[in-house]
Structure formats: C-alpha cells, structure tokens
C-alpha cells in the first residue's frame, strides 16, 4: 500500500538555523507513529511540515499522494483543511465560543457548519453534556477532548497530535489516550509528538529526532 506520508531529505531552516536536517520518513496508512526527541530536536517542525502548516526549505514531502512541498499558500491551506486534523498540547480553543461552536468552526472553515454532526462528535468524546460550556468552564482534559472532536469532525485522513497529553493529569491523560487508541482502531493514521516513552509505547513505531536529524526507528510493543 502506498505510504500516506513520504518525506525525502526534508530540511527546514529558520534564519540560518537548521531545524530539520535531511529527514527521510515514510508512514503507512492506518499507522500510529510516535516522534520523540529532546526539546529543540525538530519534532514540532516535522509535525508542522507534515500538517502543511509550513513549507520545507529543501527536500520532498508527499502527503496522501500530493507533493505538498510544491503547493502554494492557498492550495496548502485547502489541502490542510481537507486532509489533516490537528491536536495541540495547549488545547488551542477560541475562548469566547462554546465547545459546540469550537467544533463547528472547523466545519465552517472546511465546508458548512452542521450542529447535529458537531454535537455527535462531542458526544463521542464524552462531552455530550458540556456542549454549551466555554473553554474556561471546562477542565484541561475536557478541553483536549473538544480539540480531538474538532480534529476529527471533517474526517481527515491524517491526525497529527503535538504532545496531546503534555498538560494533563493522569486520569485525563488516560482518557485522551483512550480516544487516540480508538481512532487508531478505526483506521485513522496518527502521528504523535511526545516526550513521554509511555505514551510513545502505545504507537506502532517510534522515531527519534536529535538536532533535526532522524536518529532511529524503533518498533514498539504495540507495533
């Protein structure tokens, strides 16, 4: 089966500093890949490139069969909203919109806001009773679950998560990781950046980045 992600000699430089240095990587459809590495190793940079939030300085990147490294800004935006679901560490939510509206916002940017669908997505992450709550009225775990519902609402081919449990307590971490497990079981491709070996242990494969270079690929227990 053709890989969903193919990176070849992927390089990203910021103001002369190389954040990512000739990375080669392939991810199969339905695979759960964990990216580990110390701070500043280029994990988030790699995730941003795969998520079409940024363009590589050099190299080639194919996502879902499209060479995204050649896309213009406008096409990149369209490709991102149709292909990628993003979950961040800091549960980025629009503070003045309710949980339901935050999910509907992703629908609106994708195509048309559908309240019933958004309601169902929140129901699936266990927030059916918190639809009208503002982010400030939700716990960290609940906010992250809203982010997961929002990432999945447009049925993306690829779910990218940057330290999704980094700011959560143990109970909420288990809850959120349970959702990712379910996503993976449903056939979603998940690429997750994490510091936590325990979290990485849930992935099928882990790659390590160090100073922008891919160090090794380790198949995990679950893989």
């Amino acid at each position, binding site marked *: 089966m053709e890989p969903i992600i193919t990176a070849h000699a992927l390089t990203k430089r910021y103001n002369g500093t190389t954040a990512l240095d000739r990375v080669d990587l392939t991810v199969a459809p339905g695979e759960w890949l964990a990216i580990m590495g110390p701070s500043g190793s280029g994990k*988030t*940079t790699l995730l*941003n490139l795969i*998520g079409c*939030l*940024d363009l590589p300085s050099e190299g080639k990147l194919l996502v879902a069969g499209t060479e995204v490294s050649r896309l213009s*800004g*406008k096409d990149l*935006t*369209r490709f*991102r*909203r*149709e292909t990628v679901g*993003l979950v*961040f560490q800091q549960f*980025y*939510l*629009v*503070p*003045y*919109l309710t949980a339901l*509206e935050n999910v*509907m*916002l*992703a*629908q*609106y*940017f*994708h195509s048309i*806001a559908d309240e019933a669908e958004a309601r169902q997505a929140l129901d699936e992450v266990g927030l059916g009773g918190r639809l009208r709550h503002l982010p400030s009225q939700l716990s960290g775990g609940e906010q992250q679950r809203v982010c997961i519902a*929002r990432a999945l609402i447009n049925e993306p081919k690829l779910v990218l998560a*940057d330290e999704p449990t980094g700011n959560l307590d143990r109970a909420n971490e288990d809850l959120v990781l349970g959702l990712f497990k379910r996503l993976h079981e449903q056939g979603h491709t998940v690429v997750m950046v994490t510091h936590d070996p325990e979290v990485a242990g849930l992935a099928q494969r882990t790659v390590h980045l160090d100073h922008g270079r891919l160090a090794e690929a380790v198949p995990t227990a679950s893989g």
Partner: protein
Amino acid sequence: MLLRVVLKSLARRRLRVAVAALAVALGSLLVSSLAVLSLSVAQQARQELRAYGANLLLVPQSVSAPVGLGALGMGTVAEAAELPPATLEQLASSPPTDVIAYAPFVYGLARLGDGSQSADVVVSGTNLAQAQALSPWWQVAGAWPATLPPTGPRQALVGTDISQKLGVAIGQEIALSGPGGQSSWRVSGVLSTGGSEDSQIVMDLAPAQSLLGRQGVDLVQLRAQGRQPALEATARGLEAAIPGSQARVVRQVASAESSVVAKVQGLMALVAMLVLVAASLAVFSTMATTVLERTPEVGLMKALGASPNRIGLMFTLEATAIGAAGGLTGFALGLAVAQAIGKSVFGSYLPASLWALPATIAVALAVALLASLWPIRRAVRIEAARILRGE
C-alpha cells in the same frame, strides 16, 4: 457561523469596542451636526446677510446724445432722468419672483428753516415701510413717522448728523422749502444708519415728491435671492420688464455673501476632518490591539484551514460593526446637537436634510475601515506555524 464569531468576539471585548465606537460616534456627531449646520448656516447666513441691504439697484437709463458741429465731435451730454411712477406700479403689481424686498427713493435738495438760520439739506423720500424691511438695521430714536398724522404737520425722520449739527430735536417742528413749495414737518425721530441717510431728512415718498416737485423716483433698491449669476439674471429680467430702466448688481454685498458662507463651510470642514483623524487613531489603536491579542486565535483558525480572505472578512466585519454603531449613534446625537445649536444661535430648529444619514454612516464606515486596514493586513499575514511554535 462567521457572524456568530464576529458578534461573540465583539461582545467579549465590549468595553474596548464601545470606546472605539464612541470615538467614531464623536467624529460622526461632528460630521452630522456640522453637515446640518453647514447647510443651514449657509441658508441662515444668507438670510442674515440680507440685512446688509440691497444687492440690486434699479436706476433710470441715462439719455445721452452726441454733441458736435459737422465733423467736429464735442463729446456727449447726458440728461438726468428719473424712473416714472409706472415703474413702482409695475413692481407692485407683478414683482419679480426672486425679489424679496424693495424700496423706491427720490432725492433732492431743500432749504431747512428760513432767514439766517436756514441750511441746505438733502431730502430723501421713500416708502418707509418698504425701506424698513429692506434695511432692518436702520435705528430710529423716537418714532417712525405716522403715515397720516391725526393732527398737526406731516412727520419726518432727521438723520443723526443733521440733528447734531443743526440742533434739530425730536418733536420739533421744522420748515422745509423745495422746488415744489414750502411745508411744515414734525420730527418724529432721529435716524441712524451709518450711511448717507444720517445726513438726510427722510420722509414718505409722496410728500417728498411734492416738496421736491418730482413725479418719479431716482432709484429703486432691491434685495433679490441668489448668488452673483442669479442676480445678473434678475437684473436683466428687470431691465426687460421695465423699459427705460437699468439694473445694477451691488457687487460688494453679493460677493461678501459668497465669501462668508464659503469661509464658514471651510472652517467647519477643517474641524470635522481633524476630529475624524482623531477618531481614526482611536479605531486604529483598538483594532491593532485586538489583532495583537487575538494572534493565537487567528493562528489557530488558520491551522484549522481558514483562508486569509476569511480572516480578513472577520476583522472587516468587526470594523464595519464599530463604524456602523458609531455612525448611527453619532448621527442621532449630531442631529440633536445641531438642533440645539440652531435653536440657540438662530432661534429656530434646523431642517434635517435627507442625505445627512447616509453621508454620516458612509463617513463613519470609511473612518473605521480605513483605520483598520493596517491591523487587518497584519491579521491576514499571521502565520499559523509561528504561532503554534509559540513565537
């Protein structure tokens, strides 16, 4: 959905938005009140300036003929003429539509008093009621002459200079002798105009004509509506309607009107412009702060797939809401302020003009949108990746 986001965003920052809208409202208030005032002031000023008297003079066409002997030309002689009584009848029966007020005048020399105490004075006869309407600044100490006094001699006004120089007082009986005969007059009041009338004895037209032995009048002063070109047209119309007459525009008064009104409007426009610049700065500050504060939010929206156009539209709608709210509030307040000023300065409420509302809203929107251009441009250029990296 976008509208919901915009409304909730505005509601969340309601205090700051209210301050920006208030700044626009203050600008709009001035624009709308100045617009109403400017128009009305122009009208009112013209009315006030009408108090400066006639802007047209109707005089007899001078009759001139060449004088010479054979081929030797010796120039021309002009015969003094007068406007015949028919002129006044014609003006009274079919006055030109543009003419607001007019008064006929006849002038002549008469002898005041007799013997060694006598002096030559200029007698001016006019329709006193019409002259009063044409020149409302004429001041009379005492009383205006009664048209037909119940008893005693006819009444006349004595110019303030004559009153002082010749010691003529109110209530005094004076004798005047002119080409038409001699008659006695009672001084009903002392006239002060600041003009040539201060050195004249002013009386009703018919007795003056009788005293001076005249049938017609020397000139008719008229006050007509309109600016210079309209006045010229009225003048030509008068000449055509009244044969043997010549109409002249009194240029100083006509151009003073235009100049005063233009200056008032220019000053008002300058004040309005300065206030609008201040309002623009307030909106700019609000929008720039908003964009700065909402940078992570914009980054998130872009990460979720929002196009630059949608981000631009979102902030444009917010700026439009600020402009519209400020414009509407400013218009309502401006109208009230204009009316208050109109009442206190001109003593009457000013007419509301139809274009003031759309013009005020348009100005408010233009201020809000122009002031938001740079912040919106900045918002559109926010890069999702940089924000998510925490930069």
